[in-house]
């Protein structure tokens, strides 16, 4: 995808410093490109360190290939960068280790996370991977809120958690129907797990 056609995350112009605006280009694992402001990137410790280490100039950003984020798809990355742009310039919270952790979900974040559970878990994983502390806090809070007041039976349904019997039945079924392709998939999954689980979704 060319730079001109890349989807651009909405930016609040008024909040951006007047003197110099630098936008980095990132590419998801499904080749979707995003332009993200320098200030927004600061919300992600991982990306911030990355761009600092690269030392790009404004020209480099335009002329060099977009920075590839190979583990995250475009749909998830779009949410991540929307969140970063909205919260740019905000202080990054420090974990005080308190239990239970008290987190409020702002209105913008609540709307942003009004998504299906699959995407929500991808967002959590991306926030963890990119080390975006506050996004991790609010997305985890959203998942924790789903458990509120639920019975074990309801939790199984909400989080798609099998019971012992279902776990056992699934294992048996998998063993019985082990065709070469199924074995391949299983081996691939095990291999990924051994490699540290980076290719999560």
């Amino acid at each position, binding site marked *: 995808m060319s730079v001109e056609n890349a989807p651009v995350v909405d930016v609040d112009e008024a909040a951006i410093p007047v003197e110099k605006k630098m936008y980095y280009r990132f590419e998801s694992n499904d080749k979707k490109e995003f332009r993200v402001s320098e200030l927004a990137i600061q919300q992600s410790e991982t990306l911030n360190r990355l761009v600092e280490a690269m030392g790009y100039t404004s020209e480099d950003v335009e002329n060099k290939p977009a920075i590839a984020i190979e583990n995250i798809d475009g749909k998830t990355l779009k949410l991540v960068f929307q969140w970063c742009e909205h919260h740019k310039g905000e202080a990054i919270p420090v974990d005080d280790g308190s*239990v239970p952790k008290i987190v409020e979900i702002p209105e913008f974040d609540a709307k942003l996370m009004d998504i299906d559970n699959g995407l929500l878990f991808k967002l959590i994983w991306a926030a963890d991977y990119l080390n975006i502390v506050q996004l991790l806090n609010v997305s985890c809070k959203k998942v924790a809120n789903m458990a509120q007041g639920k019975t074990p039976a309801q939790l199984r349904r909400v989080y798609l958690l099998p019971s012992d019997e279902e776990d056992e039945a699934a294992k048996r079924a998998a063993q019985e129907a082990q065709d070469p392709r199924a074995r391949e998939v299983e081996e691939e999954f095990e291999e990924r797990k051994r490699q540290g689980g980076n290719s999560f979704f």
Partner: protein
Amino acid sequence: MNIFARCMPAALPDPIKNPGKPSPLRKLAEAAPRAFNMILSMLTIFDLFALSLVSEKWKRLVHAYHTAVPDNALQCIRLIATTKTEKISITRNEEDKEFWIWEFDSSFNFFNSVFSPSVPVLESLICWKEETEDDAEANGTITRHTLKVRTAEWKAIEKLLEHMFSIFEFRSKIIYFDLDWQSFGTIGFLDSMKQHGFDTYSYQGRNEVEWFLRRILTEQEPTKNLYFDCTTSKEFRFKIEQLNVENHFHVEQSRGIAIGEVLQLMDKGTKQICLHGTSFGKFEFKILVVTLRNMELPKWKKLNLELNKEINVFNCFEDEEILSIKTPTDRNAVIETKTLYTFPLQTDNNYISSDNVGFHIKREDGTIMTATLFGRYFACVYLQDSDAELLSIISSLDHTIDDLHFEYDSLV
């Protein structure tokens, strides 16, 4: 039929779609443990408890999360069983005003439920009706979250406790067990169960309670306080010397407890011991006082006893030198080891008559132990903080049996 079969779930769970596919939350536990732990840290106690009941795998995950971080350890668990109610209550911190309570309720209407034999036993015990109430009190607001558990059988309570101890770590355990407020056979829930015609009810009277007590005292032993008031058979014994109770050890029916066991408890560091209905008389009291005079007891503070015979301190220690002092705060008295100093006990408390007596004993380590005898049968032996403080402390000597009683209201 299983004893839990009458505890029916309100609704059956929907079947899981794609049962072979790992759930996102499970995958998160492996691929992003930080995020997974963060989610668990945001769950309430009840939510964590519910998650642990989802499957054996989740029970292990909740336990692993809970034990991984020392800050996660819960401060206190209390088992409260009285003739009116049975409760398990948990607080996160020492001074926490937020209580998580499992209240056992036998009056739940079982007929409104759908029975499924496939629902795991523990899950079927829980009605899962959460209630939260705030009480404004002098020291701030107390919040109680209550989860109704639809049974009041000891086996069910034991099962639930066992599960809690398998998932949570507790710094201290308090057991308050009082079934003798009225005679045992008339406990309310027993009658109401029979009225509903549940033929599966397995009440076997006293034996069942004794079975529960034995389990609770040996397997889930109290670590902070134990209050135990329940008439047991003569054969009922438990090895109290094995217990490690930090603060209060209070038994109402103590006839089976030997003097050696009491001394062992003190030696282990129990601060306050209160035994009613003991089989102790003059002989045991003397042994106790003489032993306490010489024993090194870094933590022990008070011992309260109801003796089985009226004793006279002068007869009790006739081979000892006894000096009388006019008041407990007689500034002219020089207290020496090997001498008992008696003084008249002055109090207007209703429990105590004017002929009560108190006496000081200087211990081997130099500390002062004071014993007071109330009425005909009650003795209270307690350690003074230090010689220097003795006079000021005992100047307001008004210790009563009530001092050592548990404050039930302070438990929940």
